[in-house]
Every structure is written in C-alpha cells, then in structure tokens.
C-alpha cells in the first residue's frame, strides 16, 4: 500500500494497463491529472476539440484492439466528448474516456463547468464510474479497462471529481477483482455449432453474412476457412466490410442500402444465412420482416441480447466468435468436409457476380467516384489502413474500394458520425505508425473536424486525407433529388473553404488533383510525405450513389443505375 494523490494513482494505473498515449484537452477540473501526466511516461496528444480526442481514441482502439484513452475537463469538455463516446458505443469500439468533475462537495450545486456527465452519457456508455475517494482509483481503472475491452467492447467513462484527483489516499493496485454482474464470456455452444453445420450442409443456397464482430474479434482466417471448406459465398455488412478479402472469388462485398448489386441480389435468393457478429442493422437488411420470412437464420454473436433483437433466428450460437468459429473449423476438418465440386448455387453466384461486375452502369467522365477510388486502391499498399467519414464518399468507398487485407477498413457505421474519419485516422496512425493511413473523406464531413490538422502536424502523425469534394452535403442532396422532388436546400457548400489552403495554413501538404494522373501522383506524394497530405479531388456534385435501397424497403427493391 502506498500513499499518493488520486491523479498520480491514475497515471500509475494507466501505465500498468500499458497505456502509452492519451488524446485530450486540459481544463480547470482535470488539471491535477495533467500535472501528473506531465511527470509520467505517457505521451499526451493535444486535440483541438474533445469530440476529436474521443474519435482519435476510438480509431486507436479499433486498430490496436486495446482501449484508446481520451481526457477532457468537466462541463463542456465532457459534453463535447459525448458524440465520440456514442460513436464508439454504436460500433462496439473499446475506449476509456476520463473526465474531470467539480469537487465532490460541489456536485449538484450547478457549479461552474459542472455537468452531470454520468447521467448524460448513460445510454451511450458500456459502463461509467465516478470514484468518490482517491483510494478507489486503482480498482476503477482496472475494472474500466477490463469492461471496455472484453466481451462486446465499448466505451467506459471515468468521471473523477477534482478533489478526488488532488487528495491523498492509500493505494493498492489490484491484480484481481470481481464484477458480480458482468460475464463477458460464455463457452462456445458446441451443440448448436454442430446443428449450424448440418443446416448449412442441408441448404441449397447458403450464404455467409459477416459483420463487424468478425473484425473486432479478428477472426479472419477462421471465416475464410469455413467459407472455402463449405464453398459458401460471403457477403458482409458495411461494418463487416473487409472481414473477408474482397478480391476472393467467394467475396460478394457488402449488402444493404448501398450494397453491391450482386451482394443484394444473391442475399435475396439465399435460403439460409450464417450471420456472424452482426446486429442486423436496418441499413444492412432493408426490412426486418421480409428478411426473416424467407430465410433460415443462424446467428453467432458474443452478445446474447443481440439474438432475437432484430431478427428471429433458427439457431443461435452465443459466445466469443473466435472460439466458436475455431470449433466450427475443427468440426468441419474432422468431418473431412470439403466442398470442392462446383455446385449449382456457386456456379450461379459466380455468374451473377460476373454479370454485375461487368454490367453495372457507372457515370461517364474521368473523375468519377468509381475511378478515383479504384485509383486509390491501385496506388495504396494493401496493408494500409483506411477510415472514412460519413456520406456519399463513404458509400462509394464501400462500392469501389476493395479491402484486400482483412481488418484494415474502419468507418462510423452505427452512429454515422460526420467528422469521425480524420481524427480516427490520426488515432489509427498512432496505433500503427508502420503503415500508411488514409481517411477517405467528403468535404462536408472533413469540415467538422479539420482542425485536427493541427494535431497531426504538430504531433508528427502524418496521414492522407483523400477528399472526395463535390462541394455539397452530397448524401442529403441525393435524398432531396430522390425523395423530395429536387427541392434542394441546405446542401450547397459553394467551394468554401479552399482545402488546399486550409491544409497549407496548418503546415500540412495540400494538393488538388483534377485528373487521374494527378491523383496517382498526389497519393504517391502523400505516401512519401512527412506531414499530413490533403488531396482535394473535385467531382461532379450531381452524382448519386447507386445501387440504392430506399429506407424501409426490402433489398429486392434495389434501385439500379439506369
């Protein structure tokens, strides 16, 4: 047992968790933490807005699969974090957010910069702690990291009153602890895995739907083995994009609102789906009723509450995905199941895939979404990490940017937070400084957190912003064109600001690319650059993302380019 102040104990506890970097902003109520951060070996990366600090921690967490840590002060500092925390919660990303709070005696008195962040954040955290005595801090940190990173990961909030940071306490740093109501692991359900195999083998048109859970649990080789042994085509959700190599012959790409035509077409034809690590989001499956009416659903997930939430399932396999899929692979090997024969379904799948890959009508012109994203794929190393913002560019990336290395593509898919991609890319680069990181962005989204350019330049965290610039809030514009009879309002960004100049003013590299050749050179320049590069790529503002499944309609009613 040692005597030390709460803030010191916090740093010791973070170091014990292996934390090397934190993203944050100081303020009145977290100054004692910052004073101890100053004395610690932990690197502080200064964000210019707390929301960005949270997104950076989120990007770091998704890539490293360890909780990213962000700091903010009380009041507005903590409320600014909320969008970032909610984004992490919606996409099950591990995060530990640490906020300062007014002193214990001031809580509830509407003190300066007091906010009830425990109350406000409740629906969007996995758990929240507010230690009231300094000696609670070591255990709270330990539990926080454990909760954030186990089972279905998510954000944990530690809200620490200023006096709890400042006062001394007797500190014990526990190795063991118990959380009575938290059981993140259940043993894989062997009986149901066996049943699932039988069901897949007895189906005529089976398909695998791979979700974000496969990426979170890094279960790529197992998924690939299962698909290859059973010869089952793989579609993904958007969050599961890149959980299966998109250049694989069995890969059909994402389904959903802006899924690949072949993926949606074949999903509709399938008679049995092996759904792995997905919550059957409305954006992925169109309408719930239509989906479950015609399909036998095998659902594997770590979170028991996901079973039956959106879809009624035939067989549920609850448990850690990696453990479950490994058992499935072993069973298949034991049964010596290897479907090498080209069956009728697989032949049909290949025909449909080839047809749509060759015949999907794309807009003409040189600088179209399809062409610029394929150019990016061509130039970018396969191991590079990509993030996206939210909007048309995101869905174009889904359609035209193939992820070859599993687990290198990340996006705000659940909450759909514009402004996520750039700070998340910075966090990703901190986690993986050895690989290039590219934020596939739209200018509407980038505008929301572009001040993170300061962080990336001053903290020497170079990334590439691939700015698909149609000078409008393009997805909103597309909906106004499609559903509101072209009554266009609130979408024209009028080429303001100039992103090359914005980049330069922060000391980053700004390049405008107006042809595919220029674009290729710009990407190469970005890959070589020591500073962040913003590549501004003007495109036609009237282009729609197609195919398109209108909200609330089934996948079969997909609108195709005419």
């Amino acid at each position, binding site marked *: 047992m040692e005597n030390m102040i709460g803030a010191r104990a916090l740093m010791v506890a973070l170091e014990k968790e292996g934390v090397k970097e934190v993203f944050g902003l100081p303020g009145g109520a977290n100054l004692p933490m910052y004073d101890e951060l100053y004395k610690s070996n932990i690197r502080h990366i200064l964000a210019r807005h707390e929301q960005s600090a949270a997104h950076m921690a989120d990007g770091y967490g998704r890539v490293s699969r360890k909780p990213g840590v962000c700091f903010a002060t009380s009041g507005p500092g903590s409320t600014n974090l909320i969008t970032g925390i909610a984004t992490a919660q919606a996409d099950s990303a591990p995060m530990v957010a640490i906020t300062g709070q007014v002193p214990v005696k001031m809580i509830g008195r509407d003190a300066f910069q007091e906010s009830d962040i425990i109350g406000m954040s409740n629906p969007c955290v996995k758990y929240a702690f507010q230690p009231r005595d300094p000696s609670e801090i070591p255990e709270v940190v330990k539990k926080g990291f454990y909760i954030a990173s186990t089972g279905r990961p998510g954000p944990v909030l530690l809200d620490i009153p200023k006096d709890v940071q400042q006062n001394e306490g007797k500190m014990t740093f526990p190795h063991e602890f118990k959380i009575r109501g938290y059981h993140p692991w259940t043993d894989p359900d062997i009986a149901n895995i066996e049943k699932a195999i039988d069901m897949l083998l007895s189906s005529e048109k089976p398909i695998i739907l791979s979700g974000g859970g496969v990426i979170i649990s890094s279960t790529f080789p197992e998924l690939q083995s299962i698909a290859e042994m059973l010869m089952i085509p793989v579609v993904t959700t958007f969050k599961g994009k890149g959980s299966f190599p998109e250049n694989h012959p069995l890969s059909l790409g994402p389904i959903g609102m802006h899924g690949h035509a072949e993926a949606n077409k074949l999903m509709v034809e399938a008679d049995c789906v092996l759904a792995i690590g997905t919550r059957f989001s409305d954006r992925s499956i169109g309408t719930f009723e239509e989906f479950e009416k015609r399909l036998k659903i095998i659902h594997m997930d770590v*979170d*028991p509450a996901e*079973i039956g939430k959106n879809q009624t399932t035939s067989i549920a396999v609850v448990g850690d995905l990696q453990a479950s899929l490994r058992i499935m692979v072993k069973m298949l090997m034991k049964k010596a199941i290897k479907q090498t024969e080209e069956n009728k379904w697989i032949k049909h799948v290949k025909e449909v895939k080839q047809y749509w890959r060759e015949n999907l009508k794309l807009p003409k012109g040189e600088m179209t979404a399809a062409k610029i994203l394929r150019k990016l794929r061509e130039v970018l190393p396969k191991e590079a990490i990509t993030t996206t913002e939210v909007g048309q560019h995101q869905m174009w990336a889904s359609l035209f940017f193939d992820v070859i290395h599993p687990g290198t593509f990340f996006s705000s898919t659940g909450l759909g937070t514009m402004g996520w991609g750039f700070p998340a890319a910075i966090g990703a680069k901190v986690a993986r400084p050895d690989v290039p990181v590219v934020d596939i962005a739209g200018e509407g989204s980038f505008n929301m957190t572009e001040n993170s350019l300061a962080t990336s330049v001053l903290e020497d965290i170079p990334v590439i912003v691939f700015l698909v610039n149609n000078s409008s809030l393009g997805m909103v514009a597309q909906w106004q064109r499609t559903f509101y009879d072209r009554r266009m309002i609130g979408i024209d960004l009028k080429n303001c600001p100039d992103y090359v100049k914005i980049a330069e003013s922060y000391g980053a590299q700004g390049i405008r690319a107006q042809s595919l050749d220029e674009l290729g050179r710009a990407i190469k320049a970005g890959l070589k650059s020591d500073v962040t590069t913003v590549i501004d790529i003007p495109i036609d503002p009237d282009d729609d993302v197609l195919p398109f499944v209108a909200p609330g309609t089934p996948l079969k009613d997909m609108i195709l380019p005419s």
Partner: protein
Amino acid sequence: MLTIISILVENKPGILWKVTNMFRSRNFNIESISVGVTVDPEFSRMTITTKGDEKYVQQIVKQLDKMIDTVEVRRLDEHKTVYRELILFKIKVSKASDSMEINKLASAYGAKVHDAKKDSIMVELTATPDQINAFEELAKPYGIIETARTGVAALQRSGA
C-alpha cells in the same frame, strides 16, 4: 400477459435510475416496480411487472441481464411464485350503510380497515394485482377518493 421479473442488483446509488432508463431508452414499459434492500445489505431486489408478447419480454430480460449492475435476473412463473402488492384506498362514506358495506367488503378480501371517519374510510389490502383490481371495481360505486399502491413484490416458491 403479466410478466414478473425479479432482479438482484448491487445496492448502490443510481442503479434504480439506470434500470428504468434502460426501459425508457429501449422503448419498454414498466407496469409496476418495487425495490428494497435484501437481507444482505450489499444487494437490493427489484420486482418489475410488465406486459407484452414473448419476444418483447425476452428482450427485456436479455437487456437487463446485459447490465453490469444486475447480478441476477429471473423471470418468475406466476404459478410458481408468491406475488403480492399492497394498496391503500381512501373511500367515500356518503350514508350510514356505506360504512358497514365497505367493512364487509374489506373483510371478504382480507383487507384491514383504518381511520374510519364519518365521511371516509381507509382500507389496506395486500393481494395480487388481479384481486386488487377486482376490489377497486367493487369499491368504485362508493367513490374512491385516492389510492396509493406499492407495486408487486414477488418470490419464487421453494423447490419450484
């Protein structure tokens, strides 16, 4: 159908709020709720009743189970459970015979009579929600001035 859910939670501030907030944010509805500390002061027991189809109730139970502050979540079978609710009625007395009739009604339901006044009478009834509703129907003609109701408390029978 009435569903009774018994939840053992950590006896810490804010847990009741978190549980009810989960009901709100997930669009579930609470029919009645009662909370009290258990023999072990580290825990409280919450008894929540709700109405809905099987899928709805299953989701409630799963979402409750998922909460880190809930130690044990059990759905109680009403046939294997003792469940009771306490209600206080203040009933109007308009004429002399009312008082006698209300006393009779109370004794038929095993209710206790308190605070019998010239123009009102208070009745305490501990019973199942169905019995309480039946009593309420019978008392209505006299005029119910006000009521206070506790929500259901429930425990599973031994060996059930």
